[in-house]
């Protein structure tokens, strides 16, 4: 045999210390690459494109031409590609791991949805094309509308609103239009104290004053307090169901009856529809208007990954006031109802320039069709099961805010951290070191130091167990007084604890070049 001893060694060598006592010359840490701002690495003089000298020419700008530098960074193509690829590797998204952000419903975005949305008949069309050339796209909108109305048990839907808060605006504008049509000048919107912050913001934006309804000790709306606040000044009531404590408002029918008896309308915030999809229909619960977040419940990307989409469903009482445009079937040909036709037309008008987020409609309908009605129901059941598995696995070491099972999200507060010196913020930062996106913290405001965890139906039991191991481990360490790993967290993130206070007090909103 020949003895070749020049090859590459395969043993691991001497064991290195866990924490190196040197800094690299480059500032990189192995595959964790330090990345400056694009303005700091590029300049307009060194772009990857050679533009020929334009020679002598007559300036036609009348002395208004730019005199200083434009300040636009220029980079050769490989450097530009590397810059954005390096940044993307620092990102954490649902494609990286569990994203338990309560009230945000970060569920998996199935790749089938993406494939459908890229079909040229959906992806390469323009909103100003003649409707005769986009009949397939309009048919998809019709079918999506049908699924949404069936799932919610409501007779009308407006697809155009662009996100949840825009959907709220649409619903409250329809309520105002309906009240104006009957000559009623009601001025108040009631909102429970556990509401999403967008609810009072929406009501205020629509010109209403907002009154808060206190919750009961069990985390639900106080029906008696609501009844005593209802009078002929109340235009509507905005309630989320399941609510932001992750609880089903089981008195919802009585709440709806009380609202209607007072001559007001019932707006339901549908942000948490994922928990009741296929199980309960808002139309049966007495709801007059509700938005759906396609980007939550129906798995279209969000959180920086894609635009939102917030279709709004309406009861018969509000259907005539829904916004334009919408798809109409005229003798077998689909067309868009685009204009308000005179005074007899009761629509609230138009909320968007065109018809809404076509790409999200394709993705949402793909999710619906690939699951089927039975699959959607199971998705809701699995989302609730996952949250209850978390709740049951954590409530002996953390403090669950309310007794009993939850819906699709589990709410904890900071009582279990009392006297440990660890805050909810510290705990959330320690979750980053564990490789998880932190849960929603300090919301809802009705409990102190809230931690709202929503695992969704996407996670396997193995993934949930891994998350539970980290949560339990951290909770026990905090109680045992080991505060260092919390106070300094995150240790393993690209950047350590950021000064959020200073960032909010003195925000730097643009790049300022060095002098």
């Amino acid at each position, binding site marked *: 045999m020949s003895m070749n001893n020049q090859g590459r060694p395969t043993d691991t060598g001497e064991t290195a210390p866990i924490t190196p006592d040197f800094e690299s010359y480059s500032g990189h840490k192995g595959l964790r690459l330090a990345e400056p701002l694009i303005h700091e690495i590029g300049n307009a003089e060194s772009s990857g494109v050679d533009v020929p000298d334009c020679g002598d020419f007559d300036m036609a700008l009348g002395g208004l031409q730019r005199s200083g530098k434009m300040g636009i960074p220029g980079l050769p193509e490989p450097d530009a590609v590397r810059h954005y690829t390096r940044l993307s590797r620092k990102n954490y998204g649902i494609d990286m791991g569990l994203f338990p952000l309560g009230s945000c419903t970060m569920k998996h975005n199935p790749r089938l949805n993406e494939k459908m949305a890229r079909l040229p008949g959906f992806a390469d069309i323009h909103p100003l094309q003649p409707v005769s050339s986009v009949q397939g796209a309009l048919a998809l909108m019709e079918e999506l509308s049908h699924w949404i109305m069936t799932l919610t048990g409501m007779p009308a839907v407006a697809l155009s609103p662009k996100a949840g808060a825009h959907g709220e605006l649409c619903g409250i504008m329809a309520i105002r239009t309906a009240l104006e049509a009957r000559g009623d000048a009601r001025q108040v919107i009631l909102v429970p104290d556990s509401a999403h*912050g967008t609810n009072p913001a929406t009501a205020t934006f629509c010109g209403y004053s907002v009154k808060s309804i206190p919750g009961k000790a069990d985390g639900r709306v106080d029906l008696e307090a609501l009844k005593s606040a209802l009078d002929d000044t109340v235009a509507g009531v905005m309630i989320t169901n399941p609510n932001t404590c992750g609880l089903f408002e089981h008195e919802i029918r009585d709440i709806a009856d009380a609202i209607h008896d007072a001559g007001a309308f019932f707006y339901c915030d549908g942000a948490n529809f994922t928990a009741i999809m296929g199980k309960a229909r808002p139309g049966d619960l007495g709801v007059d208007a509700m938005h759906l977040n396609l980007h939550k419940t129906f798995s279209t990307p969000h959180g920086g990954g894609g635009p939102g989409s917030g279709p709004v469903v309406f009861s018969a009482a509000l259907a005539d006031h829904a916004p334009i445009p919408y798809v109409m079937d005229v003798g077998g040909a689909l067309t868009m109802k685009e204009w308000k036709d005179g005074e007899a037309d009761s629509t609230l008008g138009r909320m968007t320039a065109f018809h809404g987020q076509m790409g999200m409609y394709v993705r949402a309908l793909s999710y619906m069709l690939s699951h089927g009605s039975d699959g959607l129901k199971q998705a809701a059941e699995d989302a609730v099961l996952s949250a209850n598995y978390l709740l049951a696995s954590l409530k002996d070491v953390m403090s669950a805010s309310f007794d009993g099972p939850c819906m699709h999200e589990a709410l904890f507060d900071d009582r279990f951290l009392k006297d440990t010196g660890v805050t909810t913020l510290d705990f959330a930062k320690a979750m980053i070191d564990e490789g998880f996106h932190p849960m929603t913290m*300090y*919301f809802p*405001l009705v409990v102190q130091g809230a931690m709202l965890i929503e695992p969704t139906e996407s996670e396997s039991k193995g993934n949930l167990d891994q998350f539970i191991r980290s949560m339990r481990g951290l909770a026990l360490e905090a109680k045992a007084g080991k505060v260092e790993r919390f106070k300094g967290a995150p240790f393993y993130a690209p950047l350590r604890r950021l000064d*959020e*206070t200073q960032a*909010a*007090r003195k925000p730097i909103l643009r790049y300022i070049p060095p002098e």
Partner: protein
Amino acid sequence: MIKFTEEHEWLLVDGDTVTVGITDYAQKALGDVVFVELPEVGASFGKDEDAAVVESVKAASDVFAPISGEIMDVNGALEDDPSLVNSAAMDAGWFFKMKASDMSEMDAMMDETGYNDFVAGLE
């Protein structure tokens, strides 16, 4: 004379001029204050109407007009340096001064001992 409300606001009463701020307990519960929105001088409020907004790293909260009356002065320093609410809640971190239209509205409010007992009962 200083009075306190259950909404964690303090009122320093000098004749019919009342200086209003939030208590030390409130600023601790809010966390680092990052923004304060003050009412217009000359605006009138009814008792318990929203008069100002205080925003911390955790949440935004309304500051109520604890009595009815007219805004005489506002603490403009808070707009440049909202951290005064944290560092001097009971002093330089005052929000606004009101001209009270009904002094009897303050009769039922707590004094300092009463408020301290009230806060102790919350914990």
